[in-house]
């Protein structure tokens, strides 16, 4: 089994590197993608970063060709392991210096560098080392043990897919869907029935009270609390009777259970309170 694994390693790694290498070397979006990687900062130029990515892709293609065509020789395996070690170093550097940068690993994903990228680069190192130990060509082994070879290829492909975010759509989302179906909706029960403050603010903002007080209100929601069966929403404002501006607290009070689903005509208490005296300001907002 161990020899089967090492003998098939060149095939697996060769196909993987051929795919990622072709994406980088010939992909149409490589220029845009290079712009998001740490290479731009290192090379100080977007065009050079694109070239670096394309050259890396070409190197991957050459190594892939070596692995697939001359599987029983040591050199392609070692080259692949060195390539993987280079990826690991690059990822480590990028992660440490620019954690928000894109990985550029597979020429498709734009996402930031994740642990999956590290595992994938690690697999290239391990795969390369295994391929260097191959003594028999993969086509000979595959012909000798077709069933075991097929099973190994399926398992290895599944492992690679698990560590490639490009393929999430194919397996991860259906898996999550199935989990919801089997175990039920995780957000289905145990939620409190209390009306969220955001719903009260939403109701307030659709009310006539809000429109009437809008010329006075300056801030967003500053504080909220419940007392005596009312939900209070506190805002800051400026009241300017006759041009003399004075800072006021604008206080709205409404039914804590009301939402726009339960009423479209909420009763809202509106009070302006002078910030310097803490006394209510007598004003008819609807006038």
């Amino acid at each position, binding site marked *: 089994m161990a020899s089967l694994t090492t003998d098939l390693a060149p095939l697996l790694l060769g196909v993987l590197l051929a795919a990622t290498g072709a994406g980088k070397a010939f992909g149409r979006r490589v220029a845009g993608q290079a712009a998001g990687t740490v290479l731009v900062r290192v090379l100080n130029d977007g065009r050079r970063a694109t070239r670096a990515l394309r050259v890396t892709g070409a190197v991957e293609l050459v190594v892939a060709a070596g692995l697939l065509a001359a599987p029983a020789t040591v050199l392609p395996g070692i080259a692949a392991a060195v390539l993987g070690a280079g990826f690991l170093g690059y990822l480590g550097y990028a992660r440490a210096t620019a954690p928000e940068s894109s990985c550029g690993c597979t020429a498709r994903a734009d996402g930031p560098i994740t642990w999956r990228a590290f595992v994938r680069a690690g697999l290239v190192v391990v795969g390369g080392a295994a391929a260097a130990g191959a003594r028999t060509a993969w086509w000979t082994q595959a012909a000798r043990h077709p069933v075991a070879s097929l099973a190994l290829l399926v398992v290895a492909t599944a492992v690679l897919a698990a560590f490639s975010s490009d393929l*999430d759509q194919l397996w991860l989302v259906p898996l999550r869907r199935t989990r*919801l179906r089997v175990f039920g909706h995780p957000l289905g029960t145990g939620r409190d029935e209390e009306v969220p403050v955001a*719903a009260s603010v*939403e109701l307030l903002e659709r009310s006539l009270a809000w429109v009437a007080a809008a010329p006075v209100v300056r801030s*967003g929601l500053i504080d909220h609390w419940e007392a005596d069966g009312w939900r209070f929403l506190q805002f800051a404002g400026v009241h300017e009777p006759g041009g003399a501006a004075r800072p006021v607290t604008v206080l709205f009070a409404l039914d804590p259970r009301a*939402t726009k689903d339960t009423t479209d*005509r909420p*009763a809202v208490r509106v009070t302006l309170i002078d910030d310097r005296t803490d006394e209510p300001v007598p004003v008819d907002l*609807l006038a």
Partner: protein
Amino acid sequence: MTGRHGIDRRSVLTSAALGGATIVGASALGGLDADAAFAAPMPSLDPAVSRSSFVDGRVSRIKGSTLDVVESDGTHRLVRLTNATSVWKLETVTAEAVETGDGLYARGVEMPDGSVAADAVWVNIVNLYVTVRGIERSRLHLSHGRNTLVGRIVAKRTTASFRGGALTSDLSQLKIGHHAQVLGAWRPADDSVDIARISVGH
């Protein structure tokens, strides 16, 4: 939260309000919550709005109640927070919740010295159109364009609205594949988003 004035201030305000408040009924339209940060500017009859200044950038330094904000073009703007400034960071918070490195969007009045006295500040606010790719007890897996994103569900803070309905803390109608609008607070530490509101079917 207890607010910057504490419980005592609340009871003073409560009794003042219950004493002689105007009760207003009926309905109309308007808005000044977190959504307003993204609303298209439109002419207003209110003279206060025409005097408003806006600052959008990252907080580079905090000195007392003054924030040094670097805008995308590298300009430094000073934003002053007062007792009358509302601060939003997933929910209504106090000024102490603002940290260096936070993204900030502020509306206020420009002072003669060039600083902005803020009326309202929104911290790390993001507004994204996403597709739901996974649902767990404490987080949602979302895709935004070609990127994946983790949306955190924060107890008693995350709300949802389905097909134009009122905001609710019941997220059980959420399904994988839903296209949704997420309003939330970005977490610079791990690049995830705390969800304030997820709207589906609007």
